[in-house]
């Protein structure tokens, strides 16, 4: 079967991103919509390039900045001028060791640099300095979670093995000018330090891969070793995808590149898995090729010409002796310059609290459900917001979390806003919750006030409550009168309630709430109505 540029695939439902959708236990659930070959599963591994957050590059002292005038951050070494030599940046060594420690890796006391040769206009040297034989860190693991289950509210936790972390150079950038048939080269990025994190093929679908990437992003951001901004190319993901039936040998894999946002990680991988399954199902074979993800069509397309397997002619980098890092201060040989030493124990001691620890702490300290602490840590700044509200309010954490996740985050997502753009500050929300706690307004009234606060952030909470006339009616006599009126006006409903159908009481309650514009405490009203209809 000749490969086409993009197979027209049957539309993937949202359920397709759930783990296990491709197995037979789920295909019957989706019968009639799309056909999934029984029991085939996806196999996904990732190669993630993380730009090291540092002031200068890996082997030269020119600066690292995203938007700078083209070719303004280029040292002679970056341009590969003859006679220049690489000088390793200490910060990059520390960053890669810390990342290795955070990912439970074994740090290699001795690691080596190699040259990987290929010709491309944005790599002036004709080779990239990397660590192919003996990288800085190996054999780690990453625990990641995502919200699964039918309602997407159960925390599913998985593990992926980290094969290795290696230090390597980034290449420059090429801009293709198709009109004039030329390529413009900007070397600002050439030589920037990268950590390549290789994740084993332990993942089965796009959702798992996206969750693993997200967790790695959070860890790197917490460590400060990489800011992980995918839009600026600080974190780049390449996926290795194949399909097979469990128990059978692994299938031919393809490499998917050009995934440049967190959203596209899952999309690109799921498309490729689906594409491969359809190819195999119609009797075709999978080519071991590199494919690019096209965000416009949501499809992967073949990328390179089939020139046969690339041969990178790896060789040891002759200009760089082995890289040594030391276990403890005690293991540093006498006479070694202290500025030339990286000690693993010292870095271990200054490792910050990782996201997994933060989540567990939130559960313990505030009694939150795991899925809530997951969301708090997952959304940028939300944990801080939550803790600020907690500080300023007497309301219980379990109540606060409901407001923060359902009302605040829900509204932010609906309006496509980030937390920093929230019209409601943590102080304002705390104030609202205090008024609610003190019994001045009902919960439903508080929700109305919340919406008004959203629209009119300049008005104070107290002002809005007064203006909207939502204070709870405290006059018992008034409430009794209203209830009496409603009961008298609905004799049929009262008869049904007295006959045994208690659910109809809710209808009466609704009428009372409407009449009082939500200014009554529902528990109180229920008690009164129950008495009146007994």
């Amino acid at each position, binding site marked *: 079967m000749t490969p086409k540029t993009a197979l027209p695939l049957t539309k993937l439902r949202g359920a397709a991103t759930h783990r296990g959708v491709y197995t037979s236990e789920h295909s019957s659930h989706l019968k009639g919509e799309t056909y999934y070959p029984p029991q085939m599963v996806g196999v996904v591994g990732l190669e993630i390039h993380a730009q090291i957050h540092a002031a200068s590059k890996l082997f030269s*002292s020119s600066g690292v900045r995203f938007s700078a005038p083209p070719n303004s951050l280029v040292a002679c070494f970056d*341009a590969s001028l003859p006679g220049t030599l690489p000088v390793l940046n200490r910060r990059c060594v520390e960053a890669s060791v810390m990342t290795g420690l955070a990912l439970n890796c074994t740090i290699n006391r001795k690691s080596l640099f190699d040259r990987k040769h290929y010709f491309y*206009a944005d790599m002036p040297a004709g080779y990239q300095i990397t660590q192919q034989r003996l990288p800085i860190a190996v054999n780690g693991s990453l625990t990641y979670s995502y919200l699964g289950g039918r309602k997407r509210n159960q925390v599913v936790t998985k593990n992926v093995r980290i094969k290795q972390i290696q230090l390597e150079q980034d290449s420059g950038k090429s801009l293709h000018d198709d009109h004039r048939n*030329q390529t*413009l080269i900007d070397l600002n990025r050439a030589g920037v330090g990268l950590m390549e994190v290789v994740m084993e093929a332990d993942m089965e679908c796009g959702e798992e891969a996206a969750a693993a990437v997200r967790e790695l992003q959070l860890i790197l951001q917490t460590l400060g070793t990489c800011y992980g901004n995918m839009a600026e190319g600080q974190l780049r993901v390449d996926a290795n995808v194949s399909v097979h039936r469990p128990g059978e040998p692994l299938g031919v894999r393809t490499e998917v590149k050009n995934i440049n946002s967190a959203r596209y990680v899952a999309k690109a991988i799921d498309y490729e898995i689906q594409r491969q399954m359809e190819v195999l199902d119609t009797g075709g074979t999978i080519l071991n090729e590199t494919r690019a993800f096209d965000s416009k069509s949501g499809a992967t397309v073949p990328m390179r010409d089939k020139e046969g397997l690339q041969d990178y002619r790896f060789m040891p980098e002759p200009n760089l*002796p082995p890289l040594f890092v030391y276990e403890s201060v005690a293991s540093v040989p006498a006479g070694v310059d202290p500025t030339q030493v990286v000690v693993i124990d010292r870095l271990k001691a200054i490792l910050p609290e990782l996201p997994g620890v933060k989540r567990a702490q939130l559960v313990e300290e505030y009694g939150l459900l795991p899925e809530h602490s997951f969301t708090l840590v997952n959304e940028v700044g939300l944990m801080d917001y939550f803790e600020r509200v907690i500080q300023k309010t007497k309301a219980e954490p379990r109540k606060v979390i409901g407001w923060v996740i359902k009302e605040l985050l829900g509204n932010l997502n609906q309006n496509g806003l980030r937390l920093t753009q929230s019209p409601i500050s943590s102080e304002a929300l705390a104030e609202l919750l205090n008024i609610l706690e003190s019994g001045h307004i009902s919960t439903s009234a508080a929700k109305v006030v919340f919406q008004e606060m959203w629209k009119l952030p300049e008005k104070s909470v107290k002002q809005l409550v007064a203006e909207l006339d939502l204070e709870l009616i405290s006059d018992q006599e008034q409430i009794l009168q209203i209830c009496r009126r409603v009961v008298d006006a609905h004799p049929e409903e009262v008869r049904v309630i007295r006959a045994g159908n208690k659910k109809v009481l809710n209808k009466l309650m609704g009428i009372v709430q409407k009449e009082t514009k939500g200014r009554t405490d529902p528990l109180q009203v229920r008690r009164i109505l129950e008495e009146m209809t007994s």
Partner: protein
Amino acid sequence: GQIQNQSCCYSPGSKVSWKIENSVLPQRTKISPDLVDKLESLALVDFGNQEGVNCLEEAIRFADQLHVVNTDGVEPMDSVLENSAALRWRDDNLKLDDCAWELLQLATDTVEEYFVSTQGQSLAAQSELPLTLKQVSQF
């Protein structure tokens, strides 16, 4: 292996040579035309004529002599500094230099501070001035 030394020390002006019997060497490597094409595109070197291929085959033959040495249990050394902390690094300090400005002046083709390259993923198809055979034989 059988190595016959004509002299055991070297002094300028005297010729030292050794000879290893062909029988102890592995089979002579023949370079196929396909391999020539592949090597040409990988290394951007033009040597696709009989003289070039012969030169390469002779170079491989010369290296074949290493097979006579017993390396069982010996790790290859790629740096005499393999056990010493010779790698010196620098602090993460920014140094501004005008190298790029100078380079842009040197480039034959620029467009608004970008270097210009002829389009194409692989440069093999458009290699300019590949190494001549004479230059190859000097390595």
